[in-house]
Structure formats: structure tokens, C-alpha cells
């Protein structure tokens, strides 16, 4: 720390001091198994520490550091926000608030929303009062998202919505949904879609949780029957919602690629291999498994470095291309390989669904083993949700490699 330092250094020192003074000690511990980060919203039950940590951050605008102060943000520069993130990470602090409000709909409103929508929605997002969910997919519209059929018929000052959405994560816990609806059934499919904000408490909205092959999940189906949404809740223009949705999707892909690997995944695999296959002079005794772990970790290193390269490139002013598709594709498949390999290592211990240890404590399946099995099942969804691998391959082939359109393939955007 050379001398007094720049303004940024001053900010760093002040921030650190503030964090040290204000963060409850419990907010400097990792989440316990089963514990959830603070997502905000009316239905969330928060511990006093979580609430306090949220409150002090809200007061300083640190839940949305770079958003304008007008809406309750911190008004920080990108450089300052980076410093804040670094200091929080250095202290092992939990983020005071996460969620689709901060990461998806908020930024979109800042870019594209009318002033009235911003004033209405951004402050409650910043304060963690409102939790959001995303209403895109429908039972008949998966990869071909633009073929969605939920209709919104204009009736005076409102749209009347009928249809259903699927894969709406946390719809049960959300207060609002940003939703794609068809406002012009006659137009070409991308051209009749509108991006709306919908209060989940509106009459006619019902939510049903989806059970996955891996067990309970945050996903829901949301049924809409005559749901009345004010036309003032349109983001952007009527029938122009598709472009907004696509921008958010690309953003989501990058997040997904980044999210899979847990810090200690390698250690877990190696430890499981030593435990189940033996250790031979400090090495995993089974050379085949050793080779598979090494191959996985090498590919993971290559992907991590590629993501770093994209970030370094962006910092150096390079325009981003379609890297998000590479990250999504490779990141999800790597996670599947990892989960599959974990089961292969566990062998007969990878077959449990539910288990209580036997009297002697040696029978049955341990919690880590049960988790490995469910993680494997859950990972199969990674290459489907957020844009299937097939869609990512299409995007890379067409947009990156410039290969000609297949006559049989969809002619219209992915």
C-alpha cells in the first residue's frame, strides 16, 4: 500500500472498514447444507443476522452497487464495484442479496424500461422486498421458445392472459414474474411476443411444483387463467419482446457455464477414489479412474482458462462473440461427466435413494453418497435447461462458424 493511495485505494480502505464494522460474524461463514442465500421477497423467512446484513447493505446501496442512487443503488463506478467485490470476497462475506431481480430484470429495466416501471420496481428489488421469477418456457415451446402460445388479449387497459408456463424456477416463492406472452397471433412467431411484468398474486395465477427425477426441485408449472395485467406493465414495446428475452438468455447462459464447479469438487472425486478404489503409494490405485479424473480436470482447466480468456479479452476491449454458447455447452457437459464419474467411483455405493445407517453404522449409504447419486440425476438437466446443448451447437455452427442454414432446421433465431 504505497502511501495514501488513489481515490480507489481510499474507497477500498473505507469499504473494508465499513464491512468489518457492519457484517455480522455469521455472514462470514459459508452456507450450511440446506441453507439458502438471501433471495428476498415477501415469502422469505430470514434469520436476524441475515436481515441485519441486508438492512445495512440496503442503506448503503450495496445490494445493487452500480445502480443509480435514485433507485436505491450504490451509484458506484465499475472500478469501485470491483473493489467492493474483492473486499467482500477477501473477508469471506456472503452477498447480502441475490436473485433474478438484481441479476436479470433489474438490469433490463435500467436499459429498456420506462421510467415509471423503474421507479416502481427497482427500489423494492434493491431492498429485497420483491422476489422475481422468469416465465419463458411452455410445455409446447422448449428449444423453440419463440413458438410460445400463452396469449395476452387486450381488454381496455389490461391484457388478459391465458396459458401456462413451465420451468419457472421458484415460482412458488416469487412475488412477480417477468413473462413472455403472445400478443399478436397473426404475426411471424418472433414478432408477436410481448415482455410483461406480472404480479403473482393476481387472480387466475396458480403454481404447481415440479418433481424431478432427482427429487424435489425449485421448478414449477404456472397456470394462467384470465389473468389481468395492466398494459403499463409492458417492458419495451408491444410485440417487441423477443429481442429483450434473447438478450437475457445469453446473459443466463454465461452464468450457467460458470456455476457448476464447486471449489472442492476435485478433492471430493480424488478422496472418493482413494476411499473406494484404494491408494497405492500416494496415488489412486485404479489407473483407469485416475486417467478419467485427470482427463476431466484437464478439460475443466481448459474451460476455466477459456472463461478467463474471455474476461481478459473483454477487459482489453475485445467485443464478446458467442462465447456464452461454448461455456454453456462445455460447462454443462463437464458437470455431467463429473457427476457420472463420481458414481462410477462409488460403484455399488452409488445406488441409494434414501437410507438410514444400519445399527452397526456400516450398511446403507452415506449422505455424500446419496447426494452424488442425486447430483448425477440432476446434472442430466444441465444440458437441457437454459438452452439445450443442441441449440448451443446450432448457434456455434451458424453464428460463429457461419455454416449455411440447413433447409430442415428452424429458419429463425435460437
Amino acid at each position, binding site marked *: 500500500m504505497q502511501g495514501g493511495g488513489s481515490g480507489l485505494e481510499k474507497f477500498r480502505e473505507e469499504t473494508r472498514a465499513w464491512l468489518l464494522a457492519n457484517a455480522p460474524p455469521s455472514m462470514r461463514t459459508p452456507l450450511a447444507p440446506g441453507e439458502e442465500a438471501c433471495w428476498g421477497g415477501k415469502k422469505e423467512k430470514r434469520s436476524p443476522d441475515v436481515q441485519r446484513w441486508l438492512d445495512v447493505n440496503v442503506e448503503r446501496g450495496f445490494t445493487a452497487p452500480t445502480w443509480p442512487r435514485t433507485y436505491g443503488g450504490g451509484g458506484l463506478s465499475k472500478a469501485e464495484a470491483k473493489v467492493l467485490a474483492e473486499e467482500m470476497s477477501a473477508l469471506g462475506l456472503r452477498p447480502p442479496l441475490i436473485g433474478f431481480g438484481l441479476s436479470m430484470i433489474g438490469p433490463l429495466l435500467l436499459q429498456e424500461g420506462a421510467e415509471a416501471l423503474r421507479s416502481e420496481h427497482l427500489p423494492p428489488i434493491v431492498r429485497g422486498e420483491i422476489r422475481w421469477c422468469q416465465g419463458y418456457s411452455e410445455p409446447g415451446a422448449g428449444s423453440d421458445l419463440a413458438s410460445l402460445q400463452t396469449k395476452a388479449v387486450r381488454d381496455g387497459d389490461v391484457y388478459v392472459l391465458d396459458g401456462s408456463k413451465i420451468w419457472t424456477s421458484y415460482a412458488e416463492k416469487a412475488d412477480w414474474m417477468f413473462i413472455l406472452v403472445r400478443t399478436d397471433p397473426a404475426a411471424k412467431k418472433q414478432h408477436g411476443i410481448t415482455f410483461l411484468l406480472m404480479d403473482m398474486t393476481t387472480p387466475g395465477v396458480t403454481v404447481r411444483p415440479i418433481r424431478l*427425477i432427482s*427429487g424435489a426441485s425449485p421448478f414449477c408449472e404456472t397456470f394462467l387463467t384470465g389473468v389481468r395485467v395492466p398494459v403499463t406493465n409492458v417492458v419495451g414495446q408491444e410485440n417487441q419482446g423477443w429481442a429483450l428475452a434473447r438478450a437475457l438468455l445469453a446473459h443466463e447462459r454465461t452464468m450457467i457455464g460458470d456455476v457448476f464447479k464447486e471449489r472442492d469438487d476435485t478433492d471430493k472425486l480424488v478422496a472418493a477414489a482413494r476411499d473406494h478404489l484404494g491408494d497405492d503409494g500416494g496415488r489412486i490405485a485404479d489407473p483407469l479412474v485416475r486417467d478419467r479424473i485427470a482427463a476431466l480436470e484437464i478439460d475443466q482447466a481448459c474451460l476455466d482458462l477459456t472463461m478467463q480468456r474471455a474476461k481478459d479479452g473483454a477487459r482489453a476491449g475485445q467485443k464478446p462473440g458467442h462465447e456464452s454458447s461454448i461455456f454453456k455447452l462445455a460447462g454443462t457437459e463437464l458437470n455431467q461427466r463429473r457427476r457420472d464419474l463420481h458414481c462410477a467411483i462409488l460403484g455399488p455405493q452409488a*445406488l441409494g435413494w434414501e437410507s438410514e445407517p444400519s445399527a452397526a453404522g456400516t450398511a446403507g449409504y452415506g449422505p455424500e453418497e446419496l447426494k452424488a447419486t442425486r447430483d448425477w*440425476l440432476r446434472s442430466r438437466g444441465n444440458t437441457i435447461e437454459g438452452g*439445450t446443448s443442441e441449440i448451443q451447437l446450432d448457434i456455434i455452427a451458424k453464428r460463429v462458424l457461419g455454416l449455411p442454414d440447413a433447409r*430442415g*432446421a428452424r429458419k429463425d433465431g435460437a
Partner: protein
Amino acid sequence: MDLVLNEEQKLLRQAAKDFAHARSPLARARKLRGAGEGYSRDVWKEMAELGWLGLTIDERHGGTGLGHRYLMVVLEELGAKLAPEPIVSTALLGATAIELGGSAELQREHLPAIVKGERIIALAHHERHSRFSLAAIDTTAEASTGTTWTLNGEKLHVADGSIADHFLVSARVVDGVALFLVPASAKGVTVSREERVDGRSAASVRLDRVMVRQEMRLGAGGRGLRLLERVIDAGTAGLAAEMLGSMSAAFAMTLDYLATRVQFGVPIGSFQALQHRAARLYVETELARSAVMHASAMLDGLEGGAPVARAVSVAKAKCSDAFMAIAHEAVQMHGGIGMTDEHDIGLFLKRARVCEMTFGDAAYHRDRFARLSGF
């Protein structure tokens, strides 16, 4: 040996298919998941009445002795509907052990009962950390007096263990490994039910100073391990046939979906990338089918020994990889709906994992194949 079904086998296949369709649709497998006994006593009785449980049992003991090729045809059709009845455990593992290793008295006592569906046997050979090795066990059997054995130990993940009335237990004896037939009702036997990812039940079986009569030991001294290997080869070939049926059903279900699910205005099965992947999966099912037919034909043959074991390892290695690959791809091609618990395709994925890990995974069988081939 001909790798083709004869007329009788074709009729049997149709009968099994009809039975499975009527009496054991997938909805039944779904309903039985984790519930109660995990199988249906009525269906089991009907299977016995159809003669299926005695297909590989000699006529002297009430079976038909038609052989493994016949039983495989049945198992394939039942595998297509994920029927959970303990045929492999009882009619293959149990019956083979008793037929090859049991005294005449033991055979008279148990084999006709198996044929009639009055006996359920479960193989209790696996222990913590034995992975796929048959010899890596700590359970012991001591000849406590001239006429009884005393068993001590714990067996894990015993398939059908929670419904069995007898266990086939491997134990360490002075001269190696021996097999014992142990009544579930014997004093000192504790059975703890566990639920597996495929919804079927298994159990851990604790043996605390369990005493069994002298003649409950199967096979001559010092040859228990070889007997166990032959027993498990029979069971493995049967399991491979089940797997073949399951993977073929999962593939057919996926093919249906590809032909009917419309995205971008066309059935997704018209996308060439999916077509090529589907074609490769189909080739895998065809290769697996040949290996399964060959393994069962070899079991019926007179040859015995390494060639039979090799044929079984070929079948299990191939079926393990093929079933898992098909199940993974089937879920992927179904997309989101394939991930939901309410869709049936996920049942096959879960079953694929259990089958893969039963009697040795593909890597284990490749290694065994190499050993049996002299490299």
C-alpha cells in the same frame, strides 16, 4: 449354435410381451417404487404358473429344463416394463447355486418350491469395500460342531433381500470361500431394508452367530468361489437380457418422441444430428442383442469354463455401456419433460445405473474379459 429364436421361443416371447403389457405395464413399476414389498405376490404366482421360474430347472425338480435361451426371452420382455419380480435372484442365482452345489435333499426341498413360486432367494455376497470382488469378504463361517456352521458378518445391498425367505451367503472358511443357504428366519439374521435409486428394495443382512445345518453349505470344499462365479455368470446373463429389454424400450419410447414432438414447425426426429445419434443408439442395441443371445446360448451349451465366462462378460460390458448411453441420450432427447419424475423415461435412467453396478460394471468385465483372454 444358432443366434436366432426358434418357433417355440417366438411364441414364448409373444406370450411374455402380452403378459407384461397386461399385467405389468410401466405404471406398475412406478407404483411399486419404494412401496411395501416392492413386487407383487400375485404376479409372481402367475409367472410361476406360466412355467417361467422353472425354465432353467431340470424336469426332475419340476422345471422344464428348456434352458437359458428361453428364460432370456422372458426376461427381455419383463425388462421392457421394468417388472421388479425377483426372477434373476431366485430362478437364476438361487436355483443355479442349489442345482450345481446342493445335496440331493436340498434340491428336492428347494427347486420344486422355486418352480412353484413358493420360494424367494436373494444372493448376499457383497460387503462394504468388496466392490465387485467376490473374494474380498470378511463374513466368516466356522464349523462349530460336526453338524453345524456358525456365520458372522454383514452383507450389504442384497437385491431382493427384504422379501427373500432364503439367502445365499458367501463366507470365508478355512479352505477359502464357501456358499451357504441361510433361511431368513434363522436366529441371528437381521434384515434392514434400503431403497435404491431405481425404486426397488434391497437390504443389508446382518449375521450374528447364525447357525445352519451342515448340508446348507453348497459345493465341495475349496470350490465355493468357483461355484459363486458360475452362479453369478448365470445371473449376469439374465440381468443382461433384462437390460436389453429395458434399453430397447427406452429407445423405442425415444423414437416415438422424436417422431411426434414438434419444434420449429417439424418433428424433432427430422433433425439430422438427432437422427445420426439415434441411428448409433440403434446399432448399440443390435450389438447388445447379439451378445445377450450368445451368452445365454453359451450357458445352455456343454462347453463351460472360460468361454462361457467370456461370453457373459462380453454381454454385461456391452449392455452396461449401451443401456447407460441410451438412457442418458433418451433423457436428453426428451428434453425438459424427460427430467420430470412424472415421465417414465427417467425410470429407465435410474434402472440403468443399478444394472450397471450389479455383478460388476463395464470396466470390471473388460478386465475380466482380458484376463480370460490371456492378456
